[in-house]
């Protein structure tokens, strides 16, 4: 054990000082969920199949709401989305002190050229 200890003293720390240094990520890492709202048809399949009940879709209002604290980033909604507009990004979200709900508003059905996507934090 003494040899291991001496080697560790010489080599330096093995840990990363997260969050001042970025976390180690790979291509497949599951960080947080995003939605490309322009392609979304509000079919609500993601709401029906979410194991954590984190997504709420409103077809008449054309909104898609995600409770980021409830989401466990399992990837179930991504596999069910028929338009492939749900994606999982690689970076982790920073820690916060209050619950974050992301609401995205999609384009209206009758006028497709009006882009009405915005993000609100509530």
């Amino acid at each position, binding site marked *: *054990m003494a040899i*291991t200890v001496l080697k560790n003293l010489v080599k330096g720390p093995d840990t990363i000082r997260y969050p001042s240094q970025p976390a180690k990520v*790979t291509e*497949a*890492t*599951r960080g947080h969920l995003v939605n490309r709202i322009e392609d979304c048809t509000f079919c609500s399949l993601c709401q029906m199949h*979410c*194991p954590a009940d984190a997504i709420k879709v409103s077809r008449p209002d054309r909104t898609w709401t995600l409770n980021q604290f409830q989401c466990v980033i*399992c*990837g179930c909604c991504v596999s069910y989305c028929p338009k492939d507009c749900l994606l999982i990004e690689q970076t982790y979200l920073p820690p916060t002190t209050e619950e974050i709900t992301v609401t995205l508003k999609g384009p209206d059905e009758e006028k497709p050229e009006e882009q009405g996507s915005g993000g609100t934090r509530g």
Partner: protein
Amino acid sequence: MSRQIIVPFGPQHPVLPEPIHLDLVLEDERVVEAIPSIGYIHRGLEKLVEKRDFRDYVFISERICGICSFIHGATYCQGVEKIMGVEIPRRAEFLRAIWSEHSRMHSHLLWLGCFADSMGYENLFMNCWKVREKILDVMERTTGGRIIQGVNRVGGVSKDIDAEELKRIASGIPELRADFTELTRIFDEDLTVQTRTKGIGMLPRDKAWDLGAVGPVLRGSGHAVDTRCTGYGAYDELDFKPVVRNESDCYARCMVRAEELFTSLDLVEKAIDRIPAGDILTKVRGNPTGEFHARAEQPRGEVIHYVKANGKKNLVRHRVRTPTLANVPPLVHMLAGCELADVPVIVLTIDPCIGCMER
């Protein structure tokens, strides 16, 4: 004349990874009996199965436990696939075996670190977890999650490992083997480890069978019982022998887990060698009907997932009998007659995963 006092152990204790409560009846520093009390993290997951589609429930069954998560998901899928009569592709079975063995190695290294910490040997604890990072890197590169993988599906797996990645895993094996050899040597020869574990927590051979012990607790007392020998999944083509020790004390159980690291490395090597080409997921239609007890070998012992369905998309009953629940009676037996200072070592020697135990 000695007085009896009752000392509560847990649920918050520096040595316990998860909360369990034991009331220790002491007579002058010697434990006379121990009464366990559980229920601190009961989440009622078995009731949730009546509200979720059986395909979505895979994600919940993986989150029963954080350490042994992959094998929970794989065993649930095995049970549902059996009652639906679905044959999953051979390549998916080999991929599940590779990930299961990585999961077993990371869990044993986690345990070796916590065990060293319970004896006060923090330096060894940090070194064990440093080696564990290499295995978690493999898991993250191939599945996307270090602890919760999320690749099991009913009908196979959802992500593939391509040939280049398999070669990369195989080339990292000799370095892991050298690290494991060094760690096993320290646990075998170090004087601190030996005085704290030899002769402590004796569980004789017939008592271990009678009280229903499973996993390394049973194999450390001389019984060669390992659920992987039934040959589920890809294990019928990967031959191996269970690791058995006869001393029946804490030292024997520690060495069983340390030697199982090498068995897992050999299994990963053989699986990478023999993995066939092909699909990884078959389409599953319809709803399940019937019942089945699916068994698998988790790092802590034998886990049973009992699934019962009646044709709807929610299952009627999903019962998980985890190995820690089966190892509680042997723990109560081992604690009777030991010294107070040995209680943390004995509680850790059954590898308590209370999150699994109480679902």
